[in-house]
């Protein structure tokens, strides 16, 4: 018996202490063999278990345990897909808005009622062009509408994926903000390793830099500002709200990274804490 990989034609239980559940999981996940054998009988013969019934019980536990761990491991890798998705969504949004501005300027020279923004672009895209020039403008508007649709689809995708990758973070911040925090940190693992003070100002790097150079006050919040817990709190108490929120987000990120299980308790605690902060009088 050794600690390395079992010999090429051994069962998953070979060399394993029946109480070592973690080791059994590892072998199920990473082990290999050349030829299948009558593993239940071999396990009984070798004294790993004393009956086939007990063997199947062990196998049931071990296969469940191994599969749970492996699913969690794989879903963690999904955090990078989430990061790509939110970056693509942001780029699609920014580009659609920029192009819509260009379009508004152009369409305004042709149509009296042309509106600005992506909605304006959608309206122009619906028009029947009457000249080759209008055809270009309408087609251009159509591309902008498509890009805006893509942004919406990316958002829907993020909303469906983020809860699997980071269940607690998504519950607390909403899936899109959760994805944005993961992206700003560069992955779920690095977010889980950030202190809450850093989580609080993620996305406010420019302001933080100005502060460190002595040119500005320290920023009180980064992207978490978009959340109602911060923005919806009276300006006098926004700093405490942002601090409390960031503190719980940092915990949520750690739970999501290390266990992946939903923990209702921390969400309840945060709600209570927010109520207390908001109950304070302005200026207090």
């Amino acid at each position, binding site marked *: 018996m050794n600690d390395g990989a*079992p010999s090429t034609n*051994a069962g*998953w239980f070979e060399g394993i202490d029946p109480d070592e559940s973690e080791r059994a999981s590892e072998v199920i996940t990473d082990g290999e063999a*050349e030829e*299948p054998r009558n593993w239940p009988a071999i396990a009984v013969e070798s004294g790993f278990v004393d009956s086939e019934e007990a063997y*199947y019980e062990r196998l*049931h536990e071990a*296969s469940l345990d191994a*599969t749970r761990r492996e*699913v969690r491991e794989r879903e963690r890798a999904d955090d990078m897909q989430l990061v790509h998705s939110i970056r693509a969504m942001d780029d699609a949004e920014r580009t659609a808005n920029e192009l819509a501005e260009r379009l508004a300027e152009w369409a305004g020279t042709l149509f009296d009622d042309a509106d600005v923004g992506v909605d304006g672009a959608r309206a122009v895209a619906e028009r029947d062009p009457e000249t080759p020039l209008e055809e270009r403008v309408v087609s251009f508007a159509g591309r902008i509408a498509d890009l805006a649709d893509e942004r919406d689809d990316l958002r829907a995708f993020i909303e469906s994926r983020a809860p699997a990758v980071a269940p607690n973070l998504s519950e607390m911040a909403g899936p899109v903000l959760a994805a944005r925090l993961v992206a700003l940190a560069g992955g779920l693992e690095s977010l889980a390793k950030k202190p809450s003070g850093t989580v609080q100002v993620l996305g406010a790097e420019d302001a933080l830099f100005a502060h460190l150079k002595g040119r500005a006050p320290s920023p009180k919040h980064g992207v978490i500002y978009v959340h109602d817990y911060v923005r919806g709190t009276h300006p006098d108490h926004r700093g405490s709200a942002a601090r409390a929120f960031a503190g719980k987000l940092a915990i949520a990120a750690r739970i999501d990274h290390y266990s992946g299980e939903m923990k209702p308790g921390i969400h309840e605690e945060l709600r209570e804490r927010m109520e207390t902060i908001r109950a304070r009088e302005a200026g207090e």
Partner: protein
Amino acid sequence: MTDLPEGVERRTFDGRKRLATRGETVYGEPRDEEGWRAWDAGRSKLGAMFEHGMDTGLVGGESVLYLGAASGTTVSHVADFAGPTYAVEFAARPVRDLIDVAEARGNLFPLLKDARTPETYTHVVESDLDCIVQDVATRGQADVAVRNRRFLSDDGRLLAAVKARSEDVVADPEAVFEAFLEDLRDSYEVLETQRLDRFHEDHLGVVARPK
């Protein structure tokens, strides 16, 4: 019509005779007071093979390797009437649900593995199995069946559902099925085939035995 395995019955749900097995509900299917739950052939190719009266050779209590278990819809019914049931699925997402299904069934062993690389689960899945059920709906379906033949006993059965569009979206389904059977015949003897279109469009049910 051939006999159903022991543990699979036709029971009446909402005035309609349907296949059923006994166990905990999994996907919102109706369940009667005696614990029989309807087996939706529209959501299960193996269910459709029974509905089409194919001779699966199953009698109940078999040892089974199930390839392409997804979230466990069909394999939950298999585990209800079979013996040790190994469920292989390579996508992490559906396996989350498969784990729940397996938690309620002591004879169901979930494995997050790729059916194209059986050596990665040969140290877990026992030899001389009675049956392989295959529903992988992916390219190279015949190859998957051939590679997993090592687990079957000489008199075991392969019950495969072949999806035409997995191989080639434009090819004629009949041509795809023929190519599948051709590849399969290197290592299996094909006993019966049947289009499952009444429940699953462009799918072929296949019963085969190792050569």
